[in-house]
């Protein structure tokens, strides 16, 4: 399974998770884990997803999520999991 990380940073508001989840469901991307925190009004969230069944190319999904982020006024990134494993773990 190819795991990817969606991370969201920005000002908290209604519907951030709802919007992202709707898009993921439409594109057959399964959510494996979600964690989030709000520090001083700053919303931080990450989702671990399985993109195996997604038919769209990875960079197109990434672009779609960026534009959803722009509409919501938050920054959304899609990245393959490896980068975090490599940089943060020995």
């Amino acid at each position, binding site marked *: 399974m190819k*795991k990817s*990380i969606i*991370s969201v*940073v920005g000002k908290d508001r209604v519907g951030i998770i709802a919007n992202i989840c709707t898009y993921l469901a439409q594109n057959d991307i399964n959510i494996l*884990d979600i*964690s*989030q*925190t709000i520090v001083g009004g700053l919303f*931080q*969230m*990450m989702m*671990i997803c399985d993109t195996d069944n997604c038919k769209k190319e*990875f*960079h197109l999904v*990434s672009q779609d999520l960026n534009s959803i982020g722009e509409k919501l006024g938050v920054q959304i*990134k*899609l*990245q*393959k*999991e*490896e*980068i*975090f*494993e*490599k*940089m*943060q773990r020995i």
Partner: protein
Amino acid sequence: MPSLNEVVDTNTMFERDNLDVRTITLGISLLSCIDTNLEKLKNNIYEKITSTAKDLVKIGKEIEEDYAIPIVNKRISITPLAFIGASACKKSDDYVELAIILDKAAKEVGVNFIGGYSAIVSKGMTKSEELLIRSIPKAMSKTDCLCSSINVGSTKTGINMDAVKLMGKIVKETAFLTKDQDSIGCSKLVVLCNAPDDNPFMAGAFHGVSETDNVINVGVSGPGVINRAIQSVKGKDFTALCEKIKQTSFKVTRLGQLVAQQASKRMNIPFGILDLSLAPTPAIGDSIAEILESMGLEEVGCPGTTAALALLNDQVKKGGIMASSSVGGLSGAFIPVSEDQNMINAAANGNLCIEKLEAMTCVCSVGLDMIAIAGDTKESTISGIIADEAAIGMINAKTTAVRIIPVIGKNIGDSAEFGGLLGYAPIMRVNTKSCEEFINRGGRIPAPIHSFKN
């Protein structure tokens, strides 16, 4: 699985601290292109480069998209051209023709620099190598992406002072032929001592003859990340400072290792080395000098600067070495004046002089880099500066280099504008007392003794 904190920490490095992969450099051996016929050689070189590197830029972009990381440059290094052109080039202009072909091939595959217009003359100079060196000014003025490097000395061979003398003249001529653009040709020309075979950074990159056919070398960067880490240990002792630099350097290097492995796998070309160098850009927050200032210096160039740089260089290596399977290239901290905002400020304020920079080059990677001097500086003075740097490299068994720009038509008080990653630089003062008699002696400074280290 990564934690939220780890994800946020990683992405902060990219967004706030300008962390990036500075370059994926594809080394290509051109030895198989050699021919006695110049036209055939030109075709062979063009074919070899455009076929081997055709996917380099595309694959670099794919990696950027997969991990949402910036990979700033995709580049090519080739076998030092003096080897390749030896049997076909009968005059300097023949080499210029090869230069134009290399530039064309680089543009065709979309890389921003191609390095390897080079000769290794650390002990002696063949006729062909001399032809190449003499062709540099014209080659630099007729190309955009081509970088040239000449290795004039090594710890094993000593310093070829005939080459040092010649390079003073060549630097001046290159400056003159590109005087319309603040002598920018010299920013793509570097004179080295102990040049490594696997350096991915320009202008000194070439694909050494000790290398395999093709190889992927990667250079990471992250002065901003290191700077933020140092700010978090403000007021703590050196043990805490060093520990923090090592931890951060580890993370930065792992990023490079990941990109290198991915590039190697996707291009089906072996991974060579990761270069641990911290490389600044003129962007705010991407400065080596700022790191030194965060350690507690009022402005780079003040007493303590050399010690701070030595500490930084060593800790970056210690942290990085464990994060990569193979480290090489220059691996240290670069101190190019024009490419580092805080260096520019210190030089403009008169607090950073060439002599202090020379001292700093004893403890960091490379050497006197991207320094603009008055256009009327004598050839022999430039040779003298090159000889001094080469001597530091030779005696200390390290790589040193000189990339100096005598900006034609400009003097102290003016500044030179190179644009982009190359930045801008105030014209720095050079000691004008003559070393002409010393440089004119000719011959070779013999290799140093390797005992009695004092």
